[in-house]
């Protein structure tokens, strides 16, 4: 007679080695586990919040895959992609280029959990996480591959991480830090607990809703299917947090605070513009800020407080960033659009502007006046003045443009000198990240460091675009070919 799962589950998930040839630190080096300072028996209390066997996992995942494939095939036959708004298409291309290979990096992180996590239950769970992330990579690649005949920009799902495109370098920098070069404890707190449990809701719930409203059922379905896995394996972070809060709460707070800020900065670029500017107005479900307030501020942070963590010390600045940062990211990406592999939608028609002002009371004062100058240049035929002639200053922690964390009203130098070199940051928060671990960040070259080191030749914008791998067939331009500006054309005459 076959045993029921409950009869063998405890044994199967808690199968550990009894080491006899090497001591424990040799088999599980603390620099890999991250368990230094935590008594070995503390990991006995590590309990995953859900129960899954390999047999159950395979059955459920197979059903999910069949569902995604069936929808994908049906949508492909119906020619849905050809009817999508250009702004929405930009969102999906940004997602595919920015996220697909992050999923693959997560396979490596989970496989490291399988080998080096300090608890056998966690090592067991890492197997499912690893398989999840393999599936997510393959889903994104398949989706993008199917759309390649429609637009070569979908090639960037695979290609982006093999280029020097500046935004991708920033994404890589973050995930190299939190997934590939962090020990298991810090990787799970930064990735599973903070980025997955917190921020992937933005990408996989909020964007999925917008995609569904936009008629992109295929992408929406893919995002939702991925989120069912994320919601499960993100749970790996909580039992680890519980153990760390008992033995080293200061470290837990520091790791989560750094990851929370870096996650915020990344999603200001990945999701903020897509939700508030690229998604057509009548298809928007919530603003980026509303979603962040509900899912990150109210839900995620409340859960962390239940575990004894405090709000990050920079909470007041975080709220200013929430109001402004993604607007800065958006106007910057639109202005430097030749450096993108998607076509950004400006999203500032009069009706869209009214929506922005309703959702963000300071939008007009902080951002509208700059868009007015851009609009005037578009309408007077001076497109060259809406394009960059140099690079923006970059942060030595996030690798993102300085000035894009908050608004111009908060913009001031944030610098540190380390080993005789001057480093700039996008905020006092990023400066704090650097100052507590300068050796971690000091060797990372921003695009500007590489430019000044002579790695980019010729040393001009054209040389930079070539270095980034941006070819004319994918290079960014306005998604609507500037048609949105026409309604402003008579504005100056009327006022005059």
């Amino acid at each position, binding site marked *: 007679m076959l045993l029921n799962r409950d009869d063998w589950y405890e044994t199967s998930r808690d199968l550990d080695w009894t080491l006899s040839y090497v001591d424990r630190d040799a088999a599980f080096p603390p620099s890999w586990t991250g368990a230094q300072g935590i008594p070995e028996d503390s990991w006995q209390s590590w309990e995953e919040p859900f129960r899954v066997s390999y047999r159950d996992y395979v059955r459920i995942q197979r059903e999910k895959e069949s569902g995604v494939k069936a929808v994908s095939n049906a949508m492909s036959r119906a020619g849905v992609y050809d009817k999508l708004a250009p702004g929405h298409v930009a969102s999906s291309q940004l997602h595919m280029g920015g996220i697909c290979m992050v999923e693959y990096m997560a396979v490596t992180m989970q496989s490291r959990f399988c080998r080096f996590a300090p608890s056998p239950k966690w090592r067991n769970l890492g197997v499912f996480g690893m398989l999840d992330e393999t599936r997510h990579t393959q889903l994104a690649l398949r989706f993008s591959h199917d759309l390649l005949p429609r637009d070569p920009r979908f090639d960037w799902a695979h290609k982006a991480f093999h280029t020097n495109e500046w935004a991708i370098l920033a994404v890589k920098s973050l995930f190299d830090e939190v997934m590939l070069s962090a020990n298991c404890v810090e990787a799970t707190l930064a990735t599973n607990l903070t980025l997955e449990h917190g921020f992937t809701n933005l990408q996989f719930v909020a964007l999925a809703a917008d995609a569904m409203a936009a008629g992109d059922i295929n992408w929406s379905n893919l995002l939702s299917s991925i989120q069912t896995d994320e919601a499960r394996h993100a749970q790996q972070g909580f039992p680890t947090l519980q153990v760390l809060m008992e033995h080293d709460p200061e470290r837990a707070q520091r790791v989560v605070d750094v990851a929370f800020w870096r996650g915020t900065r990344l999603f200001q670029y990945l999701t903020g513009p897509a939700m508030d500017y690229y998604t057509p107005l009548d298809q928007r479900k919530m603003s980026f800020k509303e979603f962040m307030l509900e899912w990150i501020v109210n839900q995620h942070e409340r859960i962390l407080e239940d575990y004894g963590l405090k709000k990050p010390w920079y909470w007041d600045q975080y709220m200013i960033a929430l109001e402004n940062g993604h607007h800065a990211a958006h106007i910057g990406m639109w*202005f430097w659009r030749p450096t993108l592999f998607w076509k950004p939608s400006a999203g500032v028609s009069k009706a869209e502007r009214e929506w922005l002002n309703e959702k963000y009371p300071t939008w007009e004062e902080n951002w509208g006046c700059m868009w007015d100058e851009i609009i005037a240049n578009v309408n007077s035929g001076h497109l060259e003045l809406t394009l960059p002639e140099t690079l923006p200053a970059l942060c030595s922690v996030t690798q993102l443009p300085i000035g*894009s964390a908050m608004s111009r009203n908060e913009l001031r130098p944030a610098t540190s000198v380390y080993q005789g070199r001057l480093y700039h940051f996008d905020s006092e928060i990023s400066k704090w990240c650097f100052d507590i671990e300068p050796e971690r960040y000091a060797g990372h070259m921003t695009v500007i460091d590489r430019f000044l080191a002579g790695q980019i030749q010729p040393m001009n914008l054209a040389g930079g675009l070539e270095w980034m791998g941006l070819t004319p067939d994918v290079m960014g331009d306005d998604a609507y070919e500037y048609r949105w500006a026409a309604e402003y054309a008579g504005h100056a005459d009327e006022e005059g």
Partner: protein
Amino acid sequence: MAPFPVYGRFVGDFVPHLVAVDTDDSMDIVAEKVAVHSVGRRLPRPPTAKGYDVYLDGRLIPAGTTLAELGLQPLQWLDVKFRD
């Protein structure tokens, strides 16, 4: 005379830029090189503008001062404003 990189922020714009200046440049020239990336692109030029001033750590630098005289580090942050 040598090329020198600074981070120039035109006050009112949302982003500082990498600006290639020269150690022999006076502050008037430095200001022009910073302003060209912001004024008329994202910031309107006031009709009564009388040129620009350069500030280092909040301190106004006399217009005739050359960059070399300031003894800056590469990528030092300079602020530029419309002259009052």
